[in-house]
């Protein structure tokens, strides 16, 4: 188990290294490259000085090695537009994104698993069809548009919930206020992620429901509900856990746009601002951090397998 965990961690580090390599060279392959950010009105001498200041005068491979040497020591360079260390920007913004992602993941899991179970218990009857219809809608509706519609409905028309921000400005920590702000963005994200969980839960449960021990349970007269929740559900859990790992990337992608719709100052917003401002160190930093989160979640998921299914043992 320890060996397995260590091995996976090592692989994760390798993937992270490759992510940084790919991102760095994608950015530097671009015509013009990072130097194009420098003001067109500046003189040639000024431009050269700026280039040297940011170390842009060195060839790309040298710059990558320098960046990597810093990154290993926890220094991701400085933001070109804000002058602040990238690590500080990331740590400022990460909390908001993790909060949003956490709520969304919770809602996705609760509703996704519940609807998946409902669909499987009523296989090919109307509740199954309704769930599948709602799932297809969730897959198809652009989440940012749903966000706008929800703002129109709940903030503009009804005035029940705030339209933007993650908390009321100037107010200290207030859990009710936080939750009121999170309700719409987290709900919208969950609605678009849910179909994945529903589909996997439904098919995993259907598969287990067709197995022999379920027939035995039924034969001894157990109630359908007892069969599903006590006997079947645990066995269907493994694929459900694995899909939660897979939708992490979708969740983080989705939060980029949703943070913009609802004006949350998270990693997604940071990435967009860096992208439109061509702030290369920040983009690189955000991508690596987001990749690290993904790798970490997937490692946790693999370890959770073993907890959910004692048959799985990592050597």
């Amino acid at each position, binding site marked *: 188990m320890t060996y397995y965990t260590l091995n996976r961690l090592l692989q994760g580090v390798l993937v992270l290294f490759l992510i940084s390599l790919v991102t760095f060279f994608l950015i*530097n392959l671009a015509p013009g490259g990072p130097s194009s950010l420098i003001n067109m009105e500046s003189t040639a001498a000024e431009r050269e000085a700026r280039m040297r200041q940011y170390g842009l005068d060195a060839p790309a491979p040298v710059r990558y090695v320098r960046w990597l040497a810093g990154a290993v020591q926890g220094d991701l360079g400085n933001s070109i537009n804000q002058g602040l260390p990238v690590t500080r920007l990331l740590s400022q913004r990460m909390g908001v994104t993790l909060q949003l992602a956490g709520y969304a993941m919770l809602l996705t899991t609760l509703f996704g698993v519940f609807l998946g179970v409902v669909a499987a218990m009523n296989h090919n009857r109307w509740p199954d069809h309704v769930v599948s219809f709602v799932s*297809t809608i969730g897959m*198809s*509706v*652009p989440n940012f*548009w749903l966000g706008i519609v929800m703002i129109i409905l709940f903030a503009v028309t009804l005035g029940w919930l705030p339209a933007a921000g993650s908390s009321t400005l100037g107010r200290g920590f207030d859990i009710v206020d936080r939750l009121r702000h999170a309700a719409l963005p987290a709900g919208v994200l969950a609605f678009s992620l849910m179909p994945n969980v529903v589909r996997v839960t439904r098919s995993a449960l259907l598969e287990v429901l067709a197995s022999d021990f379920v027939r035995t349970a039924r034969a001894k007269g157990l109630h359908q509900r007892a069969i599903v929740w006590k006997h079947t559900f645990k066995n269907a859990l493994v694929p459900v856990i694995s899909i939660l790992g897979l939708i992490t990337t979708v969740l983080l992608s989705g939060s*980029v746009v949703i943070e913009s*719709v609802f004006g949350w100052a998270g990693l997604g917003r940071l990435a*967009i601002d860096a992208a439109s401002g061509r702030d290369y160190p920040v983009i690189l930093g955000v*991508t690596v951090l987001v990749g690290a989160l993904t790798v970490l979640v997937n490692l946790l998921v693999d370890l959770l397998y073993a907890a959910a299914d004692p048959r799985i043992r990592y050597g």
Partner: protein
Amino acid sequence: MADAAAVSARANRRKSRSRLWNKILRQPVGIAALVGILLLIALVTFGPELYPHSAHRTAPLATLKPPSAEHWLGTDELGRDVFARVMAGGRVSLAVGLVSMLVGLTIGSLAGGAAGYFGGLTESIIMRLVDVFMAIPAFFLILVIVTSFGNHPLMVILTVGFSFWPQMARPVYAEFKKFRNSEFVEASHALGGGHLRVMLKHIFPQVLPQAIVLATLGVGWAILSEAGLSYLGLGIQPPLASWGNMLQNAQAYLWLNPVLAIYPGLFIAVTVLLFNVLGNALRDVLDPRG
């Protein structure tokens, strides 16, 4: 003798074709989705030619008008006709969706096919790259590329397509790996067939049903990505209309005229829904395992 064999082969083919037809006819919802998609394509292709208003002409005195017989969906903040813009934006969004799906499918099939067929070092390198790209949330990858290479419409298409090559590469890889050592591949090699011929003529047809399903679902995904990107102001740039950048404009007028934000989103949702429904129906017909 040879004639008889040819006749029976033809009869078999006809039989399997009619079986396919029967399966297709059992998917009325899928057929309806296909018809819907064709109607949408017809609307965005011919609509702008038939509708009297231009998507670009502004009218400072007739801004934010409600729907009327003159302007079917009203006018936007610059007095442009919303219905004309929806059709013009649809041209762009559908084109981006279809072409970038082809881009993703091509890159994914080539990479996945090569990895599965050749194995060894090619396999390790390509599949490790797939892992890396799967670990970067697609939207961040798109942001990185668009930042560095600019947001020319062609670049947007390439970027969105490129961002889902790993999803395409995985199933293709699995199939090619499965068939690499099968007898029909060996037979073709024995007859002097080169690698390319074996891959394209003998293995790829096995993957085709799955690829068609993935591609159909991929169009919906590509349309959503382009819309999100353009909504953020990083995709298709105004004055060229796309459903995504129309929504970006509309959000500024949410309190004044919320209806503006409804139409483009509704068109995106319906279009993606049609492609998803068609994709699911195709999966039932073509891919019994899915």
